[in-house]
Structure formats: structure tokens, C-alpha cells
């Protein structure tokens, strides 16, 4: 089980940057499609809020790889 936790940690580590890429790309696409202050604010808030959370996901993955959650 501890081995699975460590291997899954790689997924969580990579999921962080993948989420950042996805949300920034979606934000750019939506703002380009519907340019307007409402769209900029909505997507701006999404990006600002989700980037630290995605970084947190990568840190979580790093801890998992290091065996911090092993029982």
C-alpha cells in the first residue's frame, strides 16, 4: 500500500502544473471569445484562486512520493 501511495504521488505532483496549464488556457480562450470586464474578472478570480491550490496539489504529491503519508 505504501508503494502505491508513493507511485500515485507522481500523479498528484504532475496534476498541479497540468491544472495550471488547463485553467490558464481556458481563461485565455474564454476572455478572447467574450472580451468584457465580467469575463476578465470571473476568469481572473479562477486563475488567482486555483494556481496556489494547484501548487498545493504538487506539494501534496511531493510529500506522498517522500513517504510522508505512509502508515
Amino acid at each position, binding site marked *: 500500500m505504501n508503494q502505491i501511495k508513493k507511485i500515485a504521488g507522481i500523479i498528484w505532483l504532475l496534476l498541479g502544473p497540468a491544472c495550471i496549464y488547463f485553467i490558464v488556457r481556458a481563461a485565455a480562450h474564454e476572455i478572447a471569445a467574450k472580451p468584457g470586464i465580467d469575463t476578465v474578472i470571473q476568469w481572473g478570480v479562477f486563475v488567482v484562486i486555483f494556481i496556489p491550490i494547484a501548487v498545493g496539489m504538487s506539494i*501534496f504529491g511531493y*510529500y506522498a512520493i517522500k513517504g510522508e503519508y505512509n502508515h
Partner: protein
Amino acid sequence: MKKQNKIWQVITASSLGTLIEWYDFYIFGSLATVIAGQFFPKTNPTAALLSTLATFAAGFIVRPFGALVFGRLGDLVGRKYTFLLTLVLMGGSTFAIGLVPSYESIGFAAPIIVLTLRLLQGLALGGEYGGAATYVAEHAPAGRRGYYTSWIQTTATLGLFVSLSVILFTRHSLDIDPAVSIAKFNAWGWRIPFLFSIVLVGVSIYIRLKMQESPLFSKLKSEGAISVNPLKESFGHKENLKMVLLALFGATMGQGVVWYTGQFYAQSFIENVCKIDFDQSRTILIWAILFGTPLFVVFGSWSDKIGRKWIMLVGMFLAVITYNPLFKGLLELSDTATKTELVAAATSKINSVSIPNSGDFVRTAMSTKSYTDGTVVTTTTTDTLYADPAQTTIKPVVKISKVLANGIYWKMVLIVFIMIVYVTMVYGPIAAFLVELFPTKIRYTSMSLPYHIGNGVFGGLTPFIATLLTTMYTADALAGLQYPSIVAAVSVIIGTLYLDSKINTKHD
């Protein structure tokens, strides 16, 4: 016996205050359209911008920030005075919103004041929940934390229930004529639910003032062992940070989306996608909440016996695998294409009202269709007839409103009730789970942040992201469910792998 009475006093004082805070927070959301008309006219871009900020900033940025500010305060000066402060802040802001003159009366000052008060509401909510949950848990006897904290867990849903009930009651009690009553409510009656808050808050402050500080925190304080820097100890030390991250990704993230999908998105889906009448779309949720609420206590209590982990994760898993059929069921129940129309009962009327000094008319066409199962569908089309024949309305406004017959109505209640059961499974045990994860001296700070990111950010964004997905994939009315399903699925996987199924007894 005296000890038993004391814990119930603690639960009553904490739960009542938390319920009022949720009530205060929800009435703004539930009355968003009416408030927008009063303070944020769409014709003015700056006012519309402030409206967007009020919606987004209060729910998603300020709540986690409030968790940090008040969590730190709660770990430094104590739980009792901190969550008393959040209650005063929330009650004062809510009451003040009810007093703010409209945009028409004072111009830009109105939306700016309302935005500021809304931000204060978000800040207060961010500080309240962690304090109440910690306060109750630190009074609860060993082995019964799940049961006692589950009373706090009922408050978020009951706050929604009370806010919907007060709004519906006020909306229909301002005049004998229903149409006049609704018009009065939209003009000034919407202020009543806000002003009513001060009575509730007054009672709650009185009760809370009589309470003592948490025994565990008092003990730490007398020993001089309280944290000097709760923020640094919570998020700067690996041993605690790793538990904060685990709480977020393995529990609160999934809990947040299940909570919001089962209540807010379900109601929005019934009203906006199924096109069910305003009152029915709300009473369906009210009944489902009423039947489902006792289950918070059932699952909270059960978690004392079998542990918190599997109750929460099974709730999330069931949500992931059944959301599609459940929402599809709502769609099918409201779909008139499969119903038989009573052609003879169909009615239609057209009404035109002249626009002064223009020669133009506003035309309203209303048609009503009745179906053999008792469903009645009213379609209202509004457009403008211009005096100049070269001008035509580009896009008439079409509003469809379905009133369901009893049998179908109760089937919808049953479907929403099933979703509320999932809510009670994921939410009932989570306060005890979070409290037990962190040591007393930094508990308020440590548990508040993952809770408000999970519930406020992941959960709070559910209606927006789900609606956004439906606008991106217009062919699929259920596309919005991808967001809560994916987030909850990730949480189930992380929780299954990394959470301990035994109750954490490491901390007091």
C-alpha cells in the same frame, strides 16, 4: 446530568449562531437578482462590475482569508470571543444591507456600500464555522465528537432552509393579491429578511455571551502553551502542512462539490434547465432538506463507531456514479415532449402597452398549455412593436414556467432528497474529522483553511463552472456535472489511499 446539560447549552449556543450566519450569507445569494436591480443596474457598466465582484470575491477570496484572520485570532485569544466577533460582524453587515438606499437614491455610493458589506459577510463566515466546530468538539466527551459536532453540521443546510422559507413567506405575505405582493417584495419587501437578521443575531449574542471558553483552550492558556504564531505553525511546518493538504484534497474538496451540487446546483438546474416555476423549484429543495437534515446527526453519530473516512468517501462515490441518472431523471420528469397535451384547455392572450412619447408598444404574448398528467406550462414572450416598420425586435424575451402536478413534484423531491442524503454523508462527520486532525493550539487556523477552500472555492464555484460547461457544450444539458464528478472522484481516490480509517486520537 449537569455535564450533559452543559454540552447541550454549548451546542445550542454554537449551532444557533452558525445557523444565523449561514442564513445571512444565503439571503444575499438567494435575492441576488432583486438586489442587482436595486443596487447594480446592468445599464451602468461600473455598477455591473461591482455586482460581479460582490458575487465572486465574497464567496471565493474573502472566505479563506476570513479563515486565516479569525483562525489565527481564535488560536491566540480564544474560541469564544472570536466566534462572537464573527457573529456581530455578520449580523451587523446583514442588517446594514437592509438599510442601504438604492442606486436611484444615492448613486454609486449604494453598490460600493453593498459590496463592502458583502465582503464583510464573507470574512465573517470564513471565521465562524471553524470556531463553532472547534468549540463544540473541545467540549464533547471522548468518542462522541462525531455525534455532537454533527449538530453544527446541520446548520449550513438549515440556514439555507430558513433563508428560502423566510424569502418565500415574505414574498407572498405583503398583499392579498399575489401579483401585488411579489411587486411589493421586489420594490422594498426584500429588505425584510435582511432586517429580520438583527433579531436572530441579538438572541444568539445573548446566549453566546453566557458561555465559557473551551476547556481545552483554557487549559492550554493556563499552562502558557498557546501558539505564538498559529499561521507559521499551521502552514510553515511540514508535519502540519501535510495534514492540511490531505484534509483539503482527500476530504473537503469532494465534500464541497457534493454539498453544492446536491443543493444549489440542483435548485438552479430545476429552475433554469427544467424550467420549473420559481416557487416550486424552491419548495422542492425545502422538502428535501427537511426530510434529509436528521441524517447529518445519524451519520455523525455513526462515524463515532465506524470512523469518519468511509462514510464520507462512500457519500462522494455514490454522488460520482449517480449524479448523471439523477439529473437525467429531473430532466425527464419535466420534459413536455413525452407528455400528452389537453389541446382544448390551451389558452393564449396578447397584451400591448404603449411606451409614452415614442409611438412604440411593448407586446406580451402569454400562452398556457395543460397536459394529461396535470403539468401546466406557461410561455411568456415579450417584444417591442416599433412605430417605424423598418425596426423589429432583434430577440424577443421568452420565459417558460412549468407548474408540476403533485405526483411529478414529489418524484422530484425524492430525487433531490437522494442528493441531500449524499450531502449528509459527506458533511455530517467532517467537523469531527477536521478537529481530530490538528492539535488544540493551532486547531482553529489549521481546520478553517482547508474547510473554506474545499467548501467555499471548490464547492462555491460549482454552480458557475457547471453552468459554464453547459454553455460550452450546449448539446448536453448534463455537461455541467463533469466538474463535481471529476473533483469528487479525485477526492475519493486520494481519500481512499491516504486517509486513515481509524479515528485520530493523537490530539485532545
